[in-house]
């Protein structure tokens, strides 16, 4: 499956409806496609292009700018190890080296069983918990080599059901109920907002 599924098209249309212009939904829709397939396929990008009314090349142009979008399959678990300054000071590079040894792969590579990909990433905003890593964007703090090995064992044996497969980001989605929706404001809606307008008339 590579185009968005019918269920995901419904979700995609709901996401698009929240923005004044459909192209603003492009990044969230790429995430949706990655959630469906684990990575971003050409067919999905072409489908997104149809949905937001741009060319497939424009979707690729945007998506290829961002680290999180993977154009090829990656492991079920993407392990992002931070080596930026705060983590480097606390052993982040040594943790990365240990991960490479443990899994027999280099950053950017995937284990032959398709379970793990490791990446050497930039700061993930858990600096006081260094060295830290994320598995599919879920945090693990102050990780020792032993804890890393345990993490790998737990992931292999399915003990970490709290971590979804790669591609799934937020598992809670925004949903605006129809009766509560204020409505998108188009850039051409040039009237003053009513609460501002009312105030001006009361002042005048």
């Amino acid at each position, binding site marked *: 499956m590579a185009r968005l599924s019918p269920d995901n098209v419904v979700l995609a249309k709901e996401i698009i409806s929240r923005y004044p212009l459909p192209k*603003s939904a492009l990044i969230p829709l790429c995430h949706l496609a990655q959630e469906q397939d684990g990575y971003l396929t050409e067919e999905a990008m072409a489908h997104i292009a149809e949905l937001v009314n741009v060319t497939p090349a424009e979707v690729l142009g945007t998506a290829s700018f961002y680290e999180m979008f993977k154009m090829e399959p990656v492991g079920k678990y993407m392990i992002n190890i931070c080596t930026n300054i705060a983590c480097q000071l606390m052993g982040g590079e040594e943790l990365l080296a240990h991960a490479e040894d443990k899994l027999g792969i280099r950053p950017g590579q995937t284990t032959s069983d398709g379970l793990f990909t490791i990446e050497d990433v930039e700061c993930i905003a858990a600096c006081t918990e260094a060295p830290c890593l994320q598995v599919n964007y879920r945090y693990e703090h102050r990780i020792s080599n032993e804890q890393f090995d345990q993490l790998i064992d737990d992931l292999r044996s399915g003990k970490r059901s709290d971590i979804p497969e790669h591609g799934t980001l937020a598992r809670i989605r925004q949903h605006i109920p129809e009766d509560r929706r204020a409505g998108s404001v188009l850039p051409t*809606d040039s009237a003053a907002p*009513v*609460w501002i307008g009312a*105030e001006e008339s009361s002042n005048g």
Partner: protein
Amino acid sequence: MAEIPKIITSRFDYEDSYSIARYEATGGYAALKKALKMTPDAVGEEVKSASLLGRGGAGFPAGTKWGLAPANVWPRYLVVNGDESEPGTYKDRLLMERDPHQLIEGVLLACYAIGCGQAFLYVRGEMALAQERIAAALNEAYAAGYVGKNILGTNFSVDVVLTWGAGAYIVGEETALIESLEGNRGMPRLKPPFFPAAKGLYMQPTIVNNVETLSNLPWIVQNGGEAFAALGAEASRGTRMFAVSGHVKNPGVFEVEYGTTTFRDLIYGHAGGILGDRELKAFIPGGASAPWFYGEHLDIPLEKGTVDRAGSMLGSGAVVVMDETTDAVKACLRVVRFFARESCGKCTPCREGTNWLEKILQRIQDGYGRLSDLELLMDVSDNISPGIAWPPKQTTICPLGPSAVSPIASALQRFRPEFEAKIAMAEQNRQSVPVAFPKAASHA
């Protein structure tokens, strides 16, 4: 000394701090109710009187920023910058995960005061939990009538839309964030003419505020701008969150009084001092972009103007501590590599320059440096940031390029002998080894 109130982290100790029940039970949404009985201008004045400096990095006064939107040009948008990525920085994520309703209430207050017809809350892509917490909080807030159409039965209506990125440091720059929100590559726009307050999202007036900045608004509206401005000193009022990381005993994120607390209070007080009671070598006072500080700077207060004048910046409130065992060249290389990787590629001096800076530093670190490299580092730096001064000049559209120059200027000025020692070792090796091929960079 009077007890300093917790303004933005007051609910952090509750396990359910992110739920609407806890938020309402602890005074949440009272400021919104109060504001809706005031005129939008009066709410804006209250915020202005707080002298709230933006907490994203540049430290621009929030009230003044709001006033930059041209009069009677509609619609206006509010964009919340939750793309926290500056190395060392770790506070917006906590505010989004632990108190999302406080942020949402801040967003509503800003929209009401400025007249924004729609708000977009842009969360960094890698922050899955923050996205979940904000999505859940927005769903709760819509159901309770705080967000959306006719908020609390008034004629104030605004949709707050959760949106999220996909991994790009540069998107923290406000015009790049707007590009990203329009579905494009996150490349900064040229200022002028594209100051967001005048021409931002969809070329309409757009106020871009940081998560921590907006999280202060409920307290300010509830307690008054004057009460906020009574805390702190000089230009730096209220409280502020600082993350202290690196070689300290008790790393953490601390909400402290802005303007009066010193670096010594933070590093040796709140963070418990240096690991192993070793000596301090250097510290980064405000995120990776900031020039480094040293022991003689410890008694400087966390006050924007004072820190600026001392030759660095408080930036995003990130203090990274390096003890005496730190390899200055290695640390400098790591920070520079970050900027090289994150350069968006739009401006040549940054795209090419940061990568050359990384390569030169890498070869010095790997033992293949040349005597001419130190001058070369300064020469390339000068092409990105002419004069290598503080505050930096730039040959680029945004400050990312000059940010890569900060650690080099700092480390070379202070720890030049460490660079020279590595190069001397390399020179010696060259004499004893007939042909030396640089080994592959460890990050290739």
